[in-house]
């Protein structure tokens, strides 16, 4: 009789913890994502969503996670921070185990108070943001190199290989992303003892850079870092081509995507880009593309882009950590196992994932590529190298 009582007590104490884990039932695990699925910024959101769904489909095809099917709920923030906040509250209401899509830096900033309040395990993979890891939180993890590292790497490469004669310049958009780009270039210029001119800022969404490039030409620049997203790259290249300024240019990871290259093709200028994942059209991503053909529908396959790789890797890490918990899946267990990941195979898409560092951040190694828009090729120039 006593033994039965003890067993009953143990069940009563043990079961509530499992039953109360949001997003986990006997038969399914629910993940959540807040991504820009509509509007001008839908390109990364649709890509990231497809990548996350691919990781989920891969696990479900193997029988799920210890008998639980995984599914994902997505809320559209349209890249508007207030909508991101609302979307996350809805996901929290609906019950999610973890957040695997966090939109842009501003949206993440709006969501962080809710993430902190409810201690939602979060994988920041859509867009890196220092706010996610400063301060470090035991439930927030990030995938990707800082924009500072990406531009530091390119400036270093340019100084060693192109050896431009004129000073280095940076033109970046006036938001937190642009500020990080500037910081990376200025850090490189300082550490490497390179000449530079004052940074130039432009309004996000600006299309005409004639005034800015004219000014930089008058300063006799020898290399230029461009802190734009997609349309800014061809915009700047157009002005450089018009003024016959054949200088090396460094661009963000979005410089290597197909859309940017196609828009830049008329200007006959190759350029550098840096990323912490391989180009999606490269040989290294062939396995990923095959997997997508197996598991994703036609519409989702069309939306595959560079952000699909980061969405895929981030979600894969979360699912691997969840799998390590066995049937007793709780948020604490998920966080503990994520923290223990030190060499998760990325399938060659990035450096192996390692979250054991002091910033809970994996894939911080950067690869520099040369984009040739005329031939629509992206040629890796280096392997994944750490610049920290």
């Amino acid at each position: 009789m006593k033994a039965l009582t003890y067993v009953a007590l143990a069940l009563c104490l043990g079961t509530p913890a499992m039953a109360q884990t949001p997003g986990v039932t006997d038969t399914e695990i629910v993940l959540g994502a807040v991504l820009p699925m509509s509007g001008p910024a839908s390109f990364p959101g649709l890509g990231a969503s497809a990548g996350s769904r691919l990781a989920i489909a891969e696990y479900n095809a193997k029988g799920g996670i210890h008998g639980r099917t995984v599914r994902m709920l997505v809320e559209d923030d349209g890249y508007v921070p207030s909508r991101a906040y609302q979307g996350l509250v809805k996901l929290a209401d609906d019950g999610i185990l973890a957040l695997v899509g966090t939109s842009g830096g501003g949206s993440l900033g709006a969501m962080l108070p809710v993430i902190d309040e409810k201690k939602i395990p979060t994988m920041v993979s859509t867009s890196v943001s220092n706010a996610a890891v400063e301060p470090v939180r035991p439930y927030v993890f990030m995938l990707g190199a800082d924009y500072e590292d990406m531009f530091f790497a390119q400036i270093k490469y340019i100084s060693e290989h192109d050896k431009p004669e004129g000073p280095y310049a940076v033109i970046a958009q006036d938001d937190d992303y642009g500020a990080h780009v500037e910081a990376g270039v200025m850090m490189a210029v300082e550490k490497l003892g390179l000449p530079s001119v004052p940074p130039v800022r432009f309004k996000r969404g600006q299309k005409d850079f004639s005034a800015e490039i004219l000014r930089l030409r008058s300063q006799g620049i020898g290399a230029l870092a461009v802190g734009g997203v997609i349309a800014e790259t061809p915009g700047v290249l157009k002005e450089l081509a018009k003024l016959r300024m054949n200088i090396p240019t460094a661009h963000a990871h979005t410089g290597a995507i197909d859309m940017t290259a196609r828009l830049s093709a008329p200007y006959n200028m190759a350029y550098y880009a840096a990323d912490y994942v391989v180009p999606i059209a490269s040989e290294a991503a062939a396995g990923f593309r095959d997997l997508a053909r197996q598991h994703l529908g036609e519409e989702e396959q069309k939306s595959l882009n560079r952000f699909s790789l980061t969405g895929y890797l981030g979600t894969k890490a979360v699912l691997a950590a969840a799998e390590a918990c066995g049937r007793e899946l709780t948020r604490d267990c998920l966080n503990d196992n994520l923290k223990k990941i030190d060499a998760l195979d990325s399938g060659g898409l990035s450096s192996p994932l390692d979250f054991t560092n002091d910033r809970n951040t994996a894939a911080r190694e950067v690869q520099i590529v040369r984009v040739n828009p005329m031939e629509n090729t992206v040629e890796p120039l280096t392997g994944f190298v750490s610049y920290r």
Partner: protein
Amino acid sequence: MRTGHAVETYGRLLALTTNPITWAWAGALVAALVALPWAVSGHLLVVSTTVLIATVGVVGLNVLTGTTGLISLGQSGFLAIGGYACGLLIRDLSLPTELAVPLAGLITGTLSLLIGVPSLRLKGLYLAITTLAASLIVIHIILYAEPLTGGPFGLRIPDVSFLGLRIADGRGMYYIALIVAVLTVVFVNNLMRSRSGRAWIALRDHDIAAKSMGIDLVRYKLLSFFVSSSIVGVAGALMALQLRFITADVFGLFLSIEALAMLLVGGVGSVAGAILGAAFIVLLPEIARGLLALVGWTGETGSAHVFEIRAVVTGVLIIVMLRIEPDGLIGIWRRTKRYWLQWPLSV
């Protein structure tokens, strides 16, 4: 229709309404709003809070655009000033929230005179462009005054309380927004019935005639700018408290257009119309979500289309309202109410 409606005392003349049934309905509405947090999910509570904050903002815009007839596209700038002012007063000066919110409104109102004074001779499209330019300037200053505002990295607001209600708590924030919204509506309703309100209406309807009747156009235009912007600044402060993290992106230019859309759809020149318009536009994605679920669309991408639907429906509604129902939703309500009051003799 009520009879025996003679007003016999100044008290009854000044009262918002002398009809006990109206008071009863108003009381029932307030009671329902007070009870709402216990009846809805966390997400709908956040949406309801957003409705209340939008109400404050649009009621403020109605003072300038609806009542005084001065078109303004500067709401996003005024919201930003209010939001950042509130955030900085709380974070850097450690002012209590009860002081920071109204002060943020006053700061916004005062700064709005920098736009109001040069804009005194402007009307219509010219004033709209001037106020739009002012918004751009405000956003530009926010981005470049990094030591003060955090620049592109934004401003984080600590978890503080307002009258004992925690802003980080969904219910607490809802009640804060409700208190401010009710006070704003009562204040503006009374203002509309005051000397200033009547002067604004005269200014809107025919400024030359108003001037010839002795109404000081300069004084009342500036007063309208000040009052409207102060209220919009308070709305911006509430936005900052709700999100607890603000950047220039939170106050995008599209907010100005959304605010005008709310006013147009609800009914220009009417406080009740402003409330209806704000509620309708903010709730439109949820309505769309519900309708899509009714027709069996329950995709895992919960809201991928509802905001696109809202954008399309808002545009269509503005065109429809301007063409067919210029008095907006409040006009439809008034006609419907009159019809049923007179039924079966209504025409």
